[in-house]
């Protein structure tokens, strides 16, 4: 059975502890050193589209955490029964069922937010993080570790999204979660220095903002790509 464990994690041959070294790495690595957005370049679409304001960003993060942990766990439980050739279809079916559940729950409990997220909740199906982790990790690791890997990656994805969301709403509208943060007296019209940065609200602002976040993140971790 040791052959089912993939290379990135040290494979314990004895009975693994519930929360050993490999488990710790599965959660902590994706937060900084192996961040899904900044280093693996997965799941970028939604990172850009939903970060206009903080509250849809939080909903999106929550949805991704639920879907990613659940899909990793389920696919890992099924991994020995999935024929290799049709694994993509099987994974997509599992993932799209989970996303449909999340979508229906959101429509029931937070209808306005789900409207403002438009098709982007549905597009978690094609969010490469979910597929990528299922293929790269859950297919070769036991359920508990896959669950932690899903959680770690979802959290690594979430913190980048929240940073981008906070800076876009703060600089673009002077607000956070819809509440005015920058005092009115700071605005240039009232004799202050602050002007809402219209670029942040638009698509180019999202691209440039995430480029800068990736720049900072990679400068800290010391990672750089070859040309």
């Amino acid at each position, binding site marked *: 059975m040791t052959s089912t464990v993939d290379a990135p994690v040290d494979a314990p041959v004895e009975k693994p502890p519930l929360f050993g070294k490999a488990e710790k790495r599965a959660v902590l690595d994706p937060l900084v050193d192996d961040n899904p957005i*900044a280093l693996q370049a997965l799941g970028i*679409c939604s990172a850009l589209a939903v970060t206009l304001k903080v509250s849809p960003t939080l909903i999106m993060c929550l949805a991704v955490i639920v879907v990613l942990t659940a899909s990793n766990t389920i696919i890992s439980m099924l991994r020995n029964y999935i024929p290799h050739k049709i694994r993509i279809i099987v994974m*997509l079916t599992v993932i799209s069922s989970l996303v449909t559940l999340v979508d229906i729950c959101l429509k029931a409990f937070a209808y306005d937010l789900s409207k403002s997220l438009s098709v982007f909740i549905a597009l978690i199906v094609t969010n490469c993080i979910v597929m990528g982790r299922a293929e790269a990790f859950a297919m070769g690791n036991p359920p508990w570790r896959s669950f932690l890997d899903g959680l770690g990656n979802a959290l690594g994805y979430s913190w980048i999204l929240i940073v981008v969301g906070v800076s876009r709403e703060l600089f673009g509208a002077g607000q956070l979660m819809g509440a005015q943060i920058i005092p009115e007296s700071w605005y240039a019209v009232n004799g202050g220095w602050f002007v809402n940065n219209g670029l942040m609200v638009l698509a180019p602002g999202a691209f440039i903002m995430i480029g800068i976040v990736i720049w900072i993140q990679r400068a800290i971790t010391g990672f750089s790509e070859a040309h």
Partner: protein
Amino acid sequence: MAAFLLADGSLVSLALKAIFVENILLAFFLGMCSYLAVSKRVDTAIGLGIAVIFVETITCPANWCIENYILAEGALSWAGMPETDLTYLRLIFYIGVIAAMVQIVEMAIDKFSPALYNSLGIFLPLIAVNCAILGASLFSAERSYTLVESTVFGFGSGIGWMLAIVSMAAIRQKLRTAHVPAPLRGLGITFIVTGLIAMAFMTFSGIQL
């Protein structure tokens, strides 16, 4: 004639809008993953772009038919079940159609152009999880397009996506000789350049179509 073609709501203006004004990548951020991964060389970018146009032009009308004859509320009345509402199955159906179409395109490319097949490599199956394709189908369902409109919309967004990835690939080929700060190299600078391209595309939004 020209006035008829460019009238508000006409097919030509819908296509132009999908290509330039509401570019699926630069305005809706869809299909970023393969855009970032395959935009290193112009020729592979062109190959993938053509594959995306093709798959999108087929899947949009196919999913339209599924939406309007099977899934939507009351759509099954032709089968004598006017009260069934299967919209909750939408995602599974859409993704199934897309995966099947991608498989067909993959086999066709493998047969007719093995060179292109080899250079696209892993990214061909990944078209199945390219959000631009699922996104175009979902957008045409959300905006309740007709069959012809959704075909034109699919085709237009495919062209728009190809335009974006090919221009990015051309810029990245030049960027290889530029002195970019080490942590910004690759992903970071690609995003910032994409931001600049998106800014350029925003100038199209003033056009009256």
